[in-house]
């Protein structure tokens, strides 16, 4: 699948107004979203890399070639996304103190890490050299088992890098998904080597952008990225939206290299 995107930066004082404008445009109430995002980095497992050389060349089939290419090709960062709700935050401190005292807590921590659903989201680096004024990139999402995701991911050759939380509001306008979002960091402390089991209070989270501004992301997913006709239709729809929102925000193409997901 492909997705075509446009981005706009929204200063914090415009946020409320833009929410209302988007609600009017899309004729729906904003859907508030909170997502945990875990960043994983692919690493090369030793021993898998070595391609066969020498006498075995004659039996190197097409499949093997493809496998080699895949394994020796570029590595990517991927993110694992889990939806959470506001209730899930802030249970860490309570449970910690209670855990210290009695093991049997009458008030169980509300956030249950073992039941957290996950989704693996892969995003390629945006395509280069397209003449269109939209960002387009290859993407893929798939559902992962709930609960502790670390064993699964490490079995696939991914190591945990960091995690953050994205909060925002979602709108749907025909084919277009509008996500007005910002990235929140966990309170400063030592960076754990695996996903947190408990969530800190939401008010302790600090926005990545110090001023607290938001990013508006307008995207359309396209089933078949090689079909020029649909890609063009999708771009046209985005351009139409850009015209409609012209007086409110300036939607534009993102810098390609800033969306680079390749692991160096």
């Amino acid at each position, binding site marked *: 699948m492909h997705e075509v995107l446009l981005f706009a930066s929204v200063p914090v004082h415009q946020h409320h107004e833009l929410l209302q404008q988007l609600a009017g445009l899309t*004729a729906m109430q904003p*859907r508030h979203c909170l997502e945990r995002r875990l960043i994983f980095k692919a690493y090369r497992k030793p021993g898998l890399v070595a391609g066969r050389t020498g006498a075995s060349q004659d039996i190197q089939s097409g499949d093997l070639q493809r496998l080699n290419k895949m394994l020796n090709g570029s590595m990517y960062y991927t993110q694992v996304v889990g939806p959470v709700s506001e209730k899930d935050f802030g249970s860490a401190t309570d449970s910690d103190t209670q855990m210290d005292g009695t093991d049997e807590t009458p008030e169980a921590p509300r956030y249950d890490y073992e039941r957290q659903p996950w989704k693996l989201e892969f995003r390629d680096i945006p395509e280069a050299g397209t003449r269109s004024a939209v960002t387009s990139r290859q993407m893929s999402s798939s559902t992962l088992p709930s609960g502790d995701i670390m064993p699964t991911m490490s079995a696939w050759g991914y190591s945990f890098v960091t995690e953050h939380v994205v909060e925002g509001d979602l709108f*749907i306008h025909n084919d277009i*998904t509008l996500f007005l979002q910002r990235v929140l960091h966990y309170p400063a402390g030592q960076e754990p080597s695996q996903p947190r089991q408990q969530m800190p209070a939401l008010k302790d989270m600090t926005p990545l952008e110090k001023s607290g501004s938001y990013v508006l992301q307008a995207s*359309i*997913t*396209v*089933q078949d990225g090689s079909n020029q006709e*649909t890609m063009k239709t999708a771009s046209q729809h985005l351009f139409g939206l850009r015209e409609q929102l012209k007086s409110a925000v300036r939607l534009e193409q993102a810098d390609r290299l800033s969306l680079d997901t390749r692991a160096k």
Partner: protein
Amino acid sequence: MADSFTLPLRPLLDERDRPDTLPAEIAQINNQWGSFRDVNEDVLRTKIAEEYRDDLDEDEGDQSASDLDSTERLEQLYKRRKDIIDFATQAHMEAMFAVDFVSLLLSKNTPRQAETSMSAFLKQIAPLGSLNAEVVNPPPKPDSTTKDISAVSRGWRIQNFNGAANKLLQAASRLENEVASETRYWNEVLTVKEKGWKVSRLPRERQALGVQYGFLEATPVFRDRGLASLRRAENGSLILDKGLIPPKARFVRVRVMQDGQLAGRSKPTSPTNDEQTIESRILQARDTLYEEELFHELVREARATANYGVTTRQNLIRIPASDNLEILLDLVDVDENDLQSDQDISQEGTRIAEGLSHTIRILLAYAHRQNLHRRTLLPLPLTPKKRSVPEHQLFRPALAYIQHMSHVLWLQSFLKDIFGVLHSAALDIPAYTKHVFSTRIAQTSSAPTAEAVVERFLTPFESTFSGKLLTPRGSFSIAIHTNLSSPSFGTSFDVSCNMPNYPDIKSPGRLSLREEVQAAITHLLLLDVVFTTSSNSLPPSKPEKDTQENRVWEAVYPQHGELVLSSSNPERHRKIKLALSRHELSLQTYTVRCIDGTGRGKWEQPSQTPKQYTWGTPSASTHSLMAVVSEASS
């Protein structure tokens, strides 16, 4: 505006002087030539001759002048020429002086213009604006002239003031009217807004106001039609301008036909009020829009359900509902309904029609909510294929309900009949229990109550009948499923039974015809009766039972309702033949003369005219079945 403006901005045109009148000319001639009285031909002739002579004299004078000396003439010529030149120079100088003077004088007021006409010498000598002119002590005018002038100017002024005043008053009153009508217009717009209608600018006509009364989640065609502009009439009242859409109120009429006769019809949803406020007009427009969308969706659904025999004409949908019930849907004007007579309208038909008309409207509102729900889901990836919008379920659930009810009622009446027959034969079969619409509701759905209520209506209907048989531990149950929204369509009966005495009898399972169900139940009950007869009979011979095994009615052919009481005498076997139908239970007793009594047909060799008993009919036997059986066995 321009044409009504009549201020006298231009000077009035003076009338042109007429040519001299004849009397003036006569007076002139009199002055010049004397009276006409002395004029006659001689005088005129002499006068002409004199004039002619004068001309000749002049010619002679020229002739004499030419006689002068040529040098003298030349001198004279030069002299004259010099005179002319002197005169011209003088005139030029005077003119230049005048120009310089006037220019200098004007340079006080308009220096730029005056400068252009000044001579260079003057510009050097005199600075601009150094000369001024003022009227000093004007000569006194005569009183009469002053009076005249002041009177005339006063008159002019008054006239102009009057004209100006009239214009101003006209403009003021016009403005007042405008203000009044604008005030009225805006007040009405405000009233509309305060009632909660959405008032906005029209997208195509930026300077006009519009009111949105349509439904956001309707089919796009109808959604876009839900916007009408609010125009201002001459007097400021609000006009709802819907463009080309006819302003008549229409509604979807439901008619119920029973056996081809009109049995009931629905009334218009909103009463037509003659009071034409803007609010009522907006409401009417909204209702009509809703009705039109409803009919549009009904036609779409009708086309999709053609396999039920639903037919569509241009403006009519004909739905065969059940048995002899037919439903007609059409879109008509609100006032058209009153034209037809009210005869042949039954209470029940009207109830069905009203119920159906409410149902389809509620279901359309529900479909709108579903549209909103679908619209706000994450969009699916874009593909070249266009996704078709599925038809809403509008009349299908109602139709399923009617069909289901019809089947339930039929089954109920059938069971009542056949149980009545059994009761009349004094067979004490326990009453069955029924659960109409026993569909289990999933309580997990997070939808609001209103939607949850409707969702219940959209699930397939199920009713169950269950009861115990005469046989101990015997039971039966019938489940009726009706489903018109997904395959398999239609109604099916799930008949199951539990008869421990006939272990090889299997439940009939899923049946779809009423006749099959009837046959299955009848057969089941017949078996039950046969078993009861064989097990319960012969209470009087109970003491001998230990010694004589044969004194028991044996069900030889339970499927055919045949029982045999074996006798030691091969000629005297007794036989009972039971037959059960919906309306009667009949019993035949006779003696058979075959060896063990199990023969059928001609092998039975009935010995005598069989005795016949029936129950459930008017000529029913008054004895109970058991009494008859005991009598037959003795």
